[in-house]
């Protein structure tokens, strides 16, 4: 016991101390924000430019897929909101859908966060909320060939025949761009059944964890753009010049990331010292 140095003692510390340190570290930047600038990377810029300017015409139909639930709101919702705003401002018509049970909550949050943009739009003409779907890859493939069988009505049980936007949306050939925001596999279903099979333009507004697996697809041109997690959301907020939730969260992200790197360095210094001693 008396041979133990500070590093050895730190190794044996109760893990609950780490948890408390982390929780407090996450909270402090909200009370004392700093606001470091966020640099925009190429994949996020490509995503934003891919849904604005000459790449989208008024009246084009875009699919926006809520592949995330309430648990990933802080990761995906900011970027998703910016993309919805950008598409609306270009005059695109948006079909909202999702594979999560709580997709209605995510839609309500989006409508709240982008309320000024939604205020100018007419439901059923400029956008429609189709709601929950299930069926995995079969459903996404079926959506490409016959969307009305996957969604005979919208979330509010209005039949497709009574929705003006749905008259123009039957399958892949009617859609200009697909934006999928995923915690799971739905993005890869769109990749295989829409982009790979029909060449539909596809981008991902995904969680950071999917970022590593999505980069090769972005580099190969399967995704025209990529937004990675809350950092991607903050970058999109910079591009649209409207700071939001992701920008606010960046201070906390800074503190926590610095903490984990320091912890890893500390642990490895201790490890190397104890190896040398042995």
């Amino acid at each position, binding site marked *: 016991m008396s041979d133990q140095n500070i590093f050895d003692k730190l190794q044996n510390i109760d893990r*609950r101390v780490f*948890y*408390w340190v*982390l*929780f407090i570290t*996450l*909270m402090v930047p*909200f*009370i004392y924000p700093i606001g470091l600038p966020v640099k925009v990377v190429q994949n996020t810029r490509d995503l934003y430019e891919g849904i604005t300017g000459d790449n989208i015409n008024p009246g084009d139909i875009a699919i926006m897929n809520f592949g995330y639930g309430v*648990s*990933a*709101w*802080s*990761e995906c919702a900011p970027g998703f909101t910016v993309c919805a705003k950008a598409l609306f401002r270009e005059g695109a018509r948006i079909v909202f859908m999702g594979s999560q*049970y*709580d997709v209605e909550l995510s839609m309500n949050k989006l409508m*709240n966060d982008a309320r000024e943009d939604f205020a100018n739009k007419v439901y059923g003409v400029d956008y429609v909320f189709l709601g*929950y*779907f*299930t069926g*995995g*890859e*079969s459903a996404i*493939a079926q959506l490409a060939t016959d969307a009305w*069988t*996957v*969604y*005979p*009505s919208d979330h509010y*049980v209005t039949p497709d025949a009574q929705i003006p936007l749905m008259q123009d949306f039957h399958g892949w050939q009617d859609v200009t761009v697909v934006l999928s925001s995923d915690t799971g596999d739905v993005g890869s279903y769109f*990749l*295989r*059944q829409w*982009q*790979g*099979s029909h060449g539909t333009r596809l981008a991902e507004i995904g*969680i*950071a*964890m999917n*970022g*590593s*697996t999505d980069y*090769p*697809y972005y*580099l*190969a*041109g*399967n995704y025209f753009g990529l937004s*990675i*997690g*809350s*950092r991607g959301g903050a970058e999109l907020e910079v591009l649209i010049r409207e700071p939001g939730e992701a920008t*606010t*969260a960046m201070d*906390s*992200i800074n503190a*926590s*990331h610095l903490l*984990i790197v320091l912890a890893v360095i500390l642990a490895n210094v201790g490890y190397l010292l104890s190896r040398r001693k042995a």
Partner: protein
Amino acid sequence: MAYPTELLSVVGLWTGWLLMLMIYSYPLYKENVAYRFAEHIFVAIFLAINLVVNFQYLMNTCVTPLLQGNLLMIVPLVLGILIYTMLIPEYRWVSRYPIALLVGAGFGLGMRGVIKPSILDAVVSTITAPSAGTMMNWVNFLYIAVGLLSSILYFLLTYEHIGPLQAPTRLGRLFIMIGLGAYFGNTVLFRFTMLTGRAQFFLQVLKIIPM
């Protein structure tokens, strides 16, 4: 979203806050009755939402068209119900038919869809040399090409990694470790962002920061 003023909404907000603390009492303190309470409530509500939402979807996509005259919808309805024979040991084999349809559709769609984006496009992207090449572009191109080849060799599990295979598979393992390190880095961002959201909610309910 502003801090709610209606009584039910305020009660709801504080209920959520308390439930959050009950869940966090497990890592921050130890397993306890409050954690078990919140955990069971969550699973129960999640399951009920699952059933309600799926029931709603089933009614819209299958039952309503069936009642409107699309008699072919009887087939998937019956096949879907047959899946529940999995719960009856002597009739379990009947559930294989709807599963066979699901598996067949899944494999067929997956296999036909995966070839272009995951194999062809990946290979083309790897072997396409940089058009306006600085030295760094060429270094990166060679890094990716050599790295991909050696990483794929690492997954050649039908041959032992000795002799001529030893060096490239060892190199491939190093490339894979770099990839996994980057994956870990992104995972940290994901997990900490979720926690950040909870920390923010904790402070917002207490009105320490604005909602």
